[in-house]
């Protein structure tokens, strides 16, 4: 689909709003299973990079991804607000550690925002950008993120 210059392609979506470092991120609610307080993480030897380890979520073993590393950010020191977002995409369920979860909001997401295309922000794992009050919220693209983690695994196997 081609768009004319100057027009924005807006989509209204419900997202979970969270922060990593000073950055605001969003993840579509459909991809969020639940939000939990951090649980002890068990390191898995030989696991691909970007996997911090696994947690026991009521009997299921769930891998936790180093989201901050992937996004090139730094998690703040534990301030009591940190959470793990349990997200799922297709057959994969993962935990994402974040600094805080602000809430669930409706956003008008611009999926073709020029800001995304100018390489100011690492656009790789972002699928859009939205404005909430005066804040910019970056919409996380879980599919491409998991794709990369998986690719990483294959590379290590070889």
């Amino acid at each position: 689909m081609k768009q004319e210059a100057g027009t924005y392609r807006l989509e209204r979506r419900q997202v979970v709003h969270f922060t990593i470092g000073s950055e605001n991120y969003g993840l579509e609610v459909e991809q969020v299973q639940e939000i939990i307080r951090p649980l002890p993480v068990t390191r898995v030897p030989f696991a691909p990079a970007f996997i911090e380890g696994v947690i026991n979520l009521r009997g299921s073993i769930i891998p936790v991804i180093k989201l901050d590393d992937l996004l090139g950010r730094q998690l703040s020191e534990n301030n009591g607000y940190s959470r793990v977002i349990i997200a799922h995409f297709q057959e994969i369920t993962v935990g994402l550690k974040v600094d805080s979860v602000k809430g669930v909001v409706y956003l008008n997401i611009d999926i073709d925002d020029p800001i995304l295309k100018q390489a100011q922000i690492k656009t790789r794992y972002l699928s859009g950008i939205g404005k909430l009050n005066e804040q910019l919220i970056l919409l996380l693209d879980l599919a491409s993120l998991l794709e990369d983690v998986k690719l990483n695994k294959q590379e290590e196997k070889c």
Partner: protein
Amino acid sequence: MDVSRYMDIFVAESQEHLDNLNKNLLLLEKNPDNKSVLYEIFRSAHTLKGMAATMGLERMAELTHEMETVLTLLKEGKIAVKQDIIDLLLSCLDDLNAMIRGFVNEGKEPSIAQGLIDALRKLSEGGSDSSQEQTKSSDLEFNEYELSVLKASKESNYKSYHIIIELAEGTVMKSARAFMVFRCLEDFGQIIKCIPPVQDLEEEKFDNSFEIFLITMDDAEKIATNLNNISEVRVASITEVNIDKSLSAVSAAKNNNKDDSKVENSIISSKALHLKTVRVDIDRLDDMMNLVGELVINKTRLEQIASGYRMSELEEAIEQMGRLTTDLQSLVMKVRMVPIRQVFDRFPRMVRDISHSLQKNVELVIEGEQTELDRTVIDEIGEPLVHLIRNALDHGIEPPDERVAVDKPKTALLRLAARQEGNNVIIEVEDDGRGMDIDEIRKQAINKGFIDPREMEHLDDKAVLNIIFEQGFSTNNTVNDISGRGIGMDVVKSKIESLNGTIDIETEKGKGTKVIINLPLTLAIIQALLVKVGEEQYAIPLHSIDETTFLIPEQIKMVQNHEVFLLRDMVLPLIRCSRLLEVPTADKKNSEEFVVVVHKGAQRLGLVVDELVGQQEIVIKPLGNLLAGIPGIAGATILGNGQVATILDVNSLF
């Protein structure tokens, strides 16, 4: 119509019918006069046709339709059961199987060899016009009572008719129509026999046609007109019974009837069994197993908490709960158990085909097919067994003339047996063939460079036999279709070991070979040793542990820059878990090192750990799609305190 959601059911059920067909066709081959087996075959083929048509699989429906036509001819006795017909029908089954698989994998129906359909058509056309005359009497088999009635009626000038009734395609209440036919015929005379039996007619266990023998004074035409007046009913044929011919067949029929009733009984009883079962999605069983695993973990947790309080009431309650969980756990395990018959059922056909192609006479004896194994094990065990059976047929069993020359019975015996022993299942594949020549194996092993000649002198026969599990080893000098490529036994062995099982061979030259497989009942819950490396806990499956020991630093020697140690005159390599697993906080100097000696087959090595925590029953949990298949890690388990511990895959360390 969107049929995709019926896919699973379709695949499962059609597989069942194919298995059924396979089994019964082989039964029919041995027992060509057995009508009830033929009926069972016909019924399965008919159901398959219906299912294929519903799913929109036109080619499959076409093929089954042609099969049905041939089966009808067999049923009506218009063609005789012969080897080539069975062969043809069996290869149809193979094609059907391939079609179903193709349908599942590609979502559309693969094309089939028109050859089979043509062959079936030729058979059915040839059958129906050439053998008209011999037809009718051949399938009239009466018991003594029926014959005496027939004889008496003939003497008093009654006529006996053989009437074949056909119901219209799609008749809804078939039993009601049959009942009306009976009512109508009873006005004319006495019904002495019907095929299938009345009971089956009442329960609608028949296809669209059935046969009746009637004694009457009236003539055929009148009866036919009356019957044709009933809606949805058509008289396909009405012929007078030739009693003399039937009489002559009576003695043969008597013998067959005995067989018939036995098989019939077993069919009926197997049907009764079906009614008591419920088909459950395997995922649900897995979920259930998971939840019970959870419960076991929580029970352990409660026990730990209670031990800190010394409250006898609490302890009693927890003890009671412990018993209940154990019961529940063993019950769920039982539910997941599947009889090994599922795997064994395909072998009669395979043995038949292979022994035909090798021109050997082999009798397959199957024992203990009701032995149950966890479904996860059942899924994996088929392939290694196929290897072993092929080996036995190809290498083990001699051609008939060679057998006769050494005073063995011409027909070789291949025995496949399963039985439970404690928490293990033993599967044996035994043949009475030529056995393995240990000296030949020694020679070949040296020639092919598997073992140094000097080393060979120290090996006993058992150790020599183990060489055949080495990759690429084969004593067969010629490669053929069936085996001898030297890729068999090592694959078998590694498969069995991945199932936590063991494999042994007993053989005697000239007498035969016996392969003994020992498998655990389930893979979901295992005994494991928990160890600490640094601050991290790991589980090592107990079945791969030989022993634990400790070493002082002086006992550790260096060989080519690798650490080794001596264990009762054996030099074993030493692996430091802290380095292997890249444990961050580890590598502290201990005055003594704890060593867990693990094995894979005959190989052994020592793992250095920081602490032995203890032996525990653990529930194996998968690591999920993202982490599946990491080498070195067999899965994870949840400990009593809720923490996750990873399970080391010992096999991958060698």
